[in-house]
């Protein structure tokens, strides 16, 4: 058997799953003592270009409570044409189509390399994709112009059959009727009055969805499933382009000292209502573009008086945010309506000030929608990001999927406690649901209205096997992830991943278990838990909790003599974990200092949806150094890495920062790169830029690109991230000339580690 790292990466490659522990403690008691729970980061739609979709439907276990999918772990009796479910041990007859099955003629789902397999559901109609643009018109003209252009561009990226709709809002909300000849029509709603779906349906004069559904049930959808407000791109392409072109800034006068009245809450409500009554349970994206906070009506986050600023963390702590609770409630209700209908809500917020992402975060978080934050629609950050929403894979299909449900089947010894990620519970109780809830728990099914290839859920499990019921040697615990979703081609697909891990007795085989520790996965899984807590608890409490967990882990798996910090040793599989925790503590996911509530929400949103690699970058940014001394190399995220003759490239996921050391900056200023004799300097300057471009091109959302130098104001982004090994407090005592002192009172990693060791070995703890 290969090493654990190989095993882990191989599994991740194939199944998109990473466990915190790759060998599971076989009893509940032991499991709880592991500190880090048995948990997994699951990327349901991990890109598998090599995986051919199977053109038939999965075979299910016949037990009503199980319904697990036939998989390579099942025992098959080829002669009797029977298979035993590996979760409930039910023996099932193969369906008639499997009559020719034999050892040599196995269906794909039985082959070990198809532990992840994708089926295409043949039944049902192909649903069109629906994109409903909800556009704020209260913004500066050049912003609006840029937005209009982006939107017009996006039309060309949509498949011709996709349905599009347009809602604009300012003081009023307008639902535009598309494809009108000679006159453009729109339905206008007051921005202060929320409407139920039923009222909306009446006011828009829409037919009952039941009629449309009924028609869909029996006959193929010959008559296009569209209405006056949502029409196929191919039909109203020109019309909509013109409409967008004529879109004007909200004409209502804004007096001095006031914010424009922005009816965001109602606009989103109408968007949700419109889809709710026309296309329930069909994949749809509500893309909301906002240039500022909602200032009136339900969902308003700030009044229109400019003299009262939008709430800050300070206000929230003081319970001084007057609109927050009400607004949050409004958006939560919307999110729940949208998610129950399978609709995605994206928020593209481009403004210098906050726009209320804090209140709206649930819209994106619950529906799997995107949340994009930028300073202006007229930045490449927004433009590129928005364009990247519509990127396509090699088959020419969007990399997004719609209206997915993820279901988990577990072996008897293990149950699922919950999930953390862009999902909502479907409240499906079952034998594999644990009573202990972590994150969104109490269910074995989650709805993810929108997901892409990097959308990752953290799933937490509970080992329920009792200590006194040992599992036979070589026993394995199995998990099956069944993801049903609407592919962007309109097909319904089911991706099934079945995976299993060995059980081990923690008392006797603790080394094995420790060796199976995936510290990266564990760090992110713990981070998600911490972020989850941070949403509801006070910051310091979360940090304390996190510290305690770390200490306990050190106590459990460290090798030390009691009360002797210097004796503390950590095995290799744990060595990086404390460092991750150190950076996590300093990260914007847990620290709100210097961040607005919107920014915090934005960072947390990104953190809980991205896959492990990205998340790790978010926790601990990557730093590369470029110098004449050798090829580019990753360096420690430490102030000591900041040297005058170096160019640093930092990737924090949200920012790509190029930092020119003092000397380099001077050279650049002197213009050496222009001189042919210093071509190598030009190359040196160019190298990080090229690397940065590469990152910029692949990342979603597009990071902020910062080019700065020693002493530059934007260098603060770098200085705030590196480990402050040198500060104004110790720079002279350290006695080292290299590096850059950081003006901070934060503890450095060294101090942190010292404390950690001390506490870990302390017998008092």
């Amino acid at each position, binding site marked *: 058997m290969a090493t654990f790292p190989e095993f882990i990466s191989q599994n991740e490659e194939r199944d998109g799953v990473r466990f915190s522990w790759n060998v599971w403690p076989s009893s509940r008691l032991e499991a709880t003592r592991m500190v880090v729970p048995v948990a997994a980061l699951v990327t349901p739609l991990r890109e598998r270009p090599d995986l051919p979709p199977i053109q038939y439907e999965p075979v299910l276990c016949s037990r009503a409570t199980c319904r697990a999918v036939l998989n390579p772990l099942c025992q098959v009796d080829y002669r009797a044409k029977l298979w035993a479910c590996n979760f409930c041990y039910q023996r099932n007859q193969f369906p008639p189509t499997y009559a020719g099955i034999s050892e040599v003629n196995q269906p794909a789902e039985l082959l070990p390399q198809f532990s992840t397999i994708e089926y295409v559901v043949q039944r049902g109609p192909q649903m069109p994709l629906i994109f409903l643009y909800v556009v704020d018109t209260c913004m500066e003209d050049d912003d609006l112009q840029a937005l209009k252009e982006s939107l017009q561009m996006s039309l060309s990226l949509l498949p011709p059959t996709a349905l599009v709709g347009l809602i604009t809002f300012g003081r009023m909300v307008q639902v535009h009727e598309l494809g009108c000849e000679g006159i453009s029509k729109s339905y206008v709603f007051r921005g202060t009055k929320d409407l139920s779906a039923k009222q909306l349906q009446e006011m828009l004069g829409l037919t009952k969805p039941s009629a449309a559904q009924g028609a869909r049930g029996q006959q193929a959808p010959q008559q296009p499933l569209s209405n006056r407000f949502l029409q196929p791109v191919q039909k109203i392409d020109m019309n909509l382009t*013109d409409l967008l072109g004529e879109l004007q800034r909200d004409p209502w006068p804004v007096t001095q000292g006031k914010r424009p009245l922005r009816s965001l809450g109602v606009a989103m409500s109408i968007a949700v209502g419109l889809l709710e009554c026309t296309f329930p349970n069909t994949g749809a994206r509500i893309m909301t573009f906002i240039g500022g906070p909602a200032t009136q009506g339900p969902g308003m986050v700030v009044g229109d008086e400019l003299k009262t600023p939008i709430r800050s963390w300070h206000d929230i702590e003081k319970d001084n945010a007057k609109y927050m609770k009400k607004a949050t409630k409004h958006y939560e209700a919307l999110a729940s309506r949208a998610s129950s209908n399978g609709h995605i809500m994206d928020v593209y917020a481009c403004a210098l000030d906050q726009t209320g992402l804090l209140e709206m975060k649930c819209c994106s978080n619950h529906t799997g929608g995107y949340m994009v934050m930028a300073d202006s629609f007229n930045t490449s950050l927004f433009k590129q990001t928005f364009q990247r929403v519509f990127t396509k894979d090699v088959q020419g299909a969007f990399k997004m999927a719609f209206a997915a449900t993820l279901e988990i089947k577990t072996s008897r010894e293990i149950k699922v406690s919950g999930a953390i990620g862009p999902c909502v519970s479907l409240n499906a109780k079952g034998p594999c649901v644990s009573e202990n809830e972590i994150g969104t728990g109490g269910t074995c099914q989650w709805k993810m209205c929108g997901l892409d290839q990097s959308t990752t859920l953290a799933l937490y499990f509970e080992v329920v096997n009792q200590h006194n019921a040992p599992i036979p040697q070589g026993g394995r615990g199995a998990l099956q992830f069944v993801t049903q979703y609407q592919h962007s081609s309109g097909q319904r697909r089911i991706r099934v991943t079945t995976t299993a891990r060995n059980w081990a007795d923690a008392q006797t085989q603790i080394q094995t278990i420790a060796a199976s520790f995936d510290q990266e996965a564990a760090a992110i899984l713990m981070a998600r838990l911490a972020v989850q807590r941070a949403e509801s608890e006070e910051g310091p409490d979360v940090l304390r909790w996190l510290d305690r967990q770390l200490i306990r882990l050190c106590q459990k798996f460290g090798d030390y003599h009691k009360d002797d910090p210097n004796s503390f040793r950590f095995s290799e599989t744990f060595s990086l974990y404390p460092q991750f925790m150190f950076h996590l503590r300093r990260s914007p996911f847990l620290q709100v200092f210097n961040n607005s509530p919107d920014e915090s929400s934005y960072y947390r949103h990104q953190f809980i949806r991205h896959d492990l690699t990205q998340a790790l970058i978010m926790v601990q940014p990557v730093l590369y150094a470029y110098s004449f001394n050798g090829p580019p190399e990753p360096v420690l995220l430490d102030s000591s890495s900041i040297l005058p003759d170096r160019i640093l490239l930092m990737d924090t996921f949200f920012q790509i920062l190029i930092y020119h050391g003092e000397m380099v900056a001077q050279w650049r200023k002197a213009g050496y790169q222009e001189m042919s004799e210093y071509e190598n300097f030009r190359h040196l300057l160019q190298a990080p830029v090229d690397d940065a471009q590469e990152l910029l091109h692949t990342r979603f959302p597009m990071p902020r690109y910062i080019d700065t130098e020693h002493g530059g104001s934007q260098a603060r982004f770098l200085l705030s991230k590196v480990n402050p090994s040198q500060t104004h407090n110790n720079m002279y005592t350290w006695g080292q000339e290299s590096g850059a002192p950081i003006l901070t009172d934060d503890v450095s990693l060294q101090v942190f580690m010292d404390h950690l060791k001390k506490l870990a070995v302390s017998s008092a703890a």
Partner: protein
Amino acid sequence: MSHQGYVAAPPYSQAQPGMGAYPAGFGPGPNQHMYGHYGDQQQAFSPPLTGAMKSPVSAPGMPPPPAPSSHYSPTAQQNGSHPQRSPGCLDWLWSSSTVPVPKHGPTGSASHKAAHQSNGCHELGKLRPGSHAEPSSEPHSAPAHTSPCYGPAPGPSWAPPDVSDPVTPGRHANGWSSNGRIPHVWSTKCRPPNVWSTNGRVPNAWSTNGRIPNVWSTNGRIPNVWSTNGRPPNGWSTNVRPPNGRSTNGWPPNGRSTNGWPPNVWSTNGRPYAGPPAPGAGGYQQLGPGPNSPSGYPQQPGQFSGQMAGGQMAGPQHGFPGAFPGAAMAGPPQKKLDPDSIPSTVSIRHPTSPHMHNLCHTLFLSYVFPPVLLTQVIEDDQAKRGGQIYATNIRGQVPPLVTTNFTVKDQGNASPRFMRCTTYTVPCTADLAKQCQVPLATIIKPLAIVPKDETPLYVVNHGETGPIRCNRCKAYMCPYMQFIDGGRRYQCAFCNCVNEVPAFYFQHLDHMGRRMDFYERPELSLGSYEFTATLDYCKNNKPASPPAYIFMIDVSFTNIKSGLVRLVCDELKTLLDKLPREDGAECSAVKVGFVTYNKILHFYNVKSALAQPQMMVVSDTAEMFLPLLDGFLVSYPESRAVIHNLLDQIPDMFADTNESETVFAPVIQAGVEALKAAECSGKLFIFHSSIPTAEAPGKLKNRDDKKLVNTDKEKTLFHPVKGVYEQLSKECVAQGCSVDLFLFPSQYLDMATMGHVPGHTGGSVYKYSNFQVETDGEHFLRDLRKDVEKPIGFDAIMRVRTSTGFRATDFFGAVYMNNTTDVEMAAVDCDKAVTVELKHDDTLSEETGAFIQCALLYTTVGGQRRLRIHNLSLNCSLQLLELFKSCETDSLINFFAKTAYRAILNQPLKSVREILVNQTAHMLACYRKNCSSPSAASQLILPDTMKVFPVYMNSLMKTAPLVGSTELSTDERAHQRLAVMAMGVEDTQRLLYPHLIPLHNMEVDGSEVPAPLRCSEERLSEGGVFLLENGHSLFLWLGQACPPDVIQGLFNLPSLAHLQPNLSTLPDLDNPLSRKVRSIINSLQEQRPNSMKLHIVRHKDKQEMLFRQFLVEDKGLYGGASYMDFLCYVHREIRQLLN
């Protein structure tokens, strides 16, 4: 209903507060009577009234029965004998008073048994005192009405007495004035008819002869009938009597014919009608020679009766059932009017003869009969003052009639086009005013059009200081301010406060004490002028912006199907070029906006920058709001292309609609919001089809309940539904949003409610029932064009200031009153008038006179804020005669119309009508008593200035709102009520007395329009063609024997039979007759504020009924007396008052 009014007459005496007092002190009665206006007194009246009506029921043991009985008996007889003949009367009787029957029946019959009505009379007389105690026992009318009910019983027994005329007279008496006065007469002579001619002589004649012929003989005795006035009363009495003749069923035709003496009266003038208006003198003299008349009698009687029949009894008897036995008894088959006989009757000219003036110092004496001819009065005034220059330099000068063409030269008083008063001499004291009962009011049409040949108003600009005003009362500088102290100070004419003259305004005085710049400053020398208003006079101290016109088209199924939507849209394309603009402006500053709606609203963005219009739908009608700001209200020239694009599309967009529900209040709300957002005033043009039933604020339901007609609850039909619309009116006024409503109903749509907003925002309501483009399209478009193009001011506040001693107390018009002094008008156009009632609060001085200053602050169509000032000075006098000499009938009737129309909101029609009659009688009686030279009581003596007042009054009482007829549509009545409330003097005049123009024998070449004729069927001739016009309707009446060449000329048809029904235009034919007729019609259409739909009516067509109702001198189609009947009645009332 109207008969009730009249019938009520008897009760009327009771109904009055005087009810009790009346019978008691008949003599003193009049003075004590409170004939006040609705506002103050009606309340006092009405309760007693009802009490009176019901009393018979409620007081079982009432002694008075005898009195009633006397009434009953006569009627009883009558009923006994005639009920079948006058079903109309019966109906009426039933409805009004079935109740008393049981009570009185017995008593009545009892008294009958004892003796016939003479007994009754006795008893009545005796009982007088008793009746005081219980005024309610007086219910003359009730008995009179009820009689039919129990008529049958006594009837038979009475039949014989019936035959003799005494009987009928008795009934008269009962009906009219069963008051104790007459008992004497009755008892002795069984001749109640005295009522009419209390001269006493006549009764004798009657009693002795028991026959009317005698009357004639008495006539004979007094040859100079007219000058002595002696005869006419007889004439009257007999005239009234004719019914008697008829009523006494037994009368041979002869009897009747003799009764018909009135023809004599007509004939006395001996002037063939056909002749040109003879000079009054001539007429008068002719009349003098008694011999003529007597000789005439024998020949005429038959005709007369015929005439009476035609004029007054042709229809079911509604008129004066109880009061006017003649009418009631119209039963016997009437002879058809002999047209030939009429001309002779018409030519009487006394009223206007200058001779007469001389004789009676402008008092006017005349017989009631023949009635004063209104057309004549108009003609005379036109002849006397027409075409002249009327300089307004004299205080208290009475202007020419509204119908007269004259040119005004402003020399210190406002032109009568702007302000007209009911009287130009104000009584000095409140007592005097009360005594004469002539209402003091001024009718102000602040933005009246100034004819081209008169000087337009000067605009005075005092720069930033704004107009100069009195410090205390805030009156504006005007010619009445007295400069003193060498010009350094001036004394306010209104409050007498002495103010400093601002330095910049100082000017030395000349030897006359006038400022040297007197002629240079309009505000010192003119009656009307304008000031430029400063920011202080603007809303929020922001300069006003030009108004906006918003066109709001109902695109529900009805309007689409009728083709209206397309019609409107097409018309707007050209009409919008003609929006009103500031004088001298190159194009109109008025912004336009468009909305269509059914149960949801569609707004249109027609910004010039757009390639195509944008439609914004608002379906949330619960809380209306404006969905767009920029591009909704645009300048037409700039956005012409987009607007045309829109107007082309609208009819097609909704072509296949099947939405039939509409909303209404949200539509107005939307308009208000639009104007609010644009911070301007404006006008909404709403084209609406049906009662708004869609679920939205202001939803209405059908509450048209014909059962309420003629009950105390009838007023609810005129009342708007409470709530939404009232609030909306308020909002509209606050924003300066006027609403013009064009309605195209096919059924009831609750006009009273829908018209509430227009009626309070200076708007108009136009109604086109069962609209069809082919027949009504042009009519509607004419209205629309006039409405859009007419000069108008917005966001107006009017304040009427008066000199000390009297003040403005009440205001009538399409206005909104937030407090008691400021008249707020969202808009006021050139046709809207406000009638202002004035009352004393102190004594006025004869020396200084009285001043009225009307200041109107408004925004012009160009968006300028202006103050328009109208000043008027009036005389004051302690002499009632002076007052009566300066009365203005046209204004009076305007005032009465408006007060009555307002009163019907609060009290039963019946009492409203009673009050009208009462006040008429009272005014005239006051004149008679205080101003005329002594004369026989039987004479009807009218002040010269009010001689035609009864015609108008009678016509007013026959207008749809005041007639309680279930045949009239509720909406129609409410509509007319609404329309009249905003009318000026000219309009009410024309409405109440339509023009009847004979077209068949006019000179087709000239430009002269034939003189109008009296509005009476008598004037029509089989072979004639007539045009009738009242400002709202236009009829072309074709006699059956109309010469074919006329038909050919007008219609290019060989004969009348080929004429298509429902034709509403005249073909464009190139012959003199057609050209002439069309030019007459066109010029009428042009002159009137409204378009008039042309109805072409053939004699005896179904449609003729419509036409007939405008012959206001005849008996009303839906009830109401003929002019003559009314005069008789009024005369009787007067005489009662005088006694």
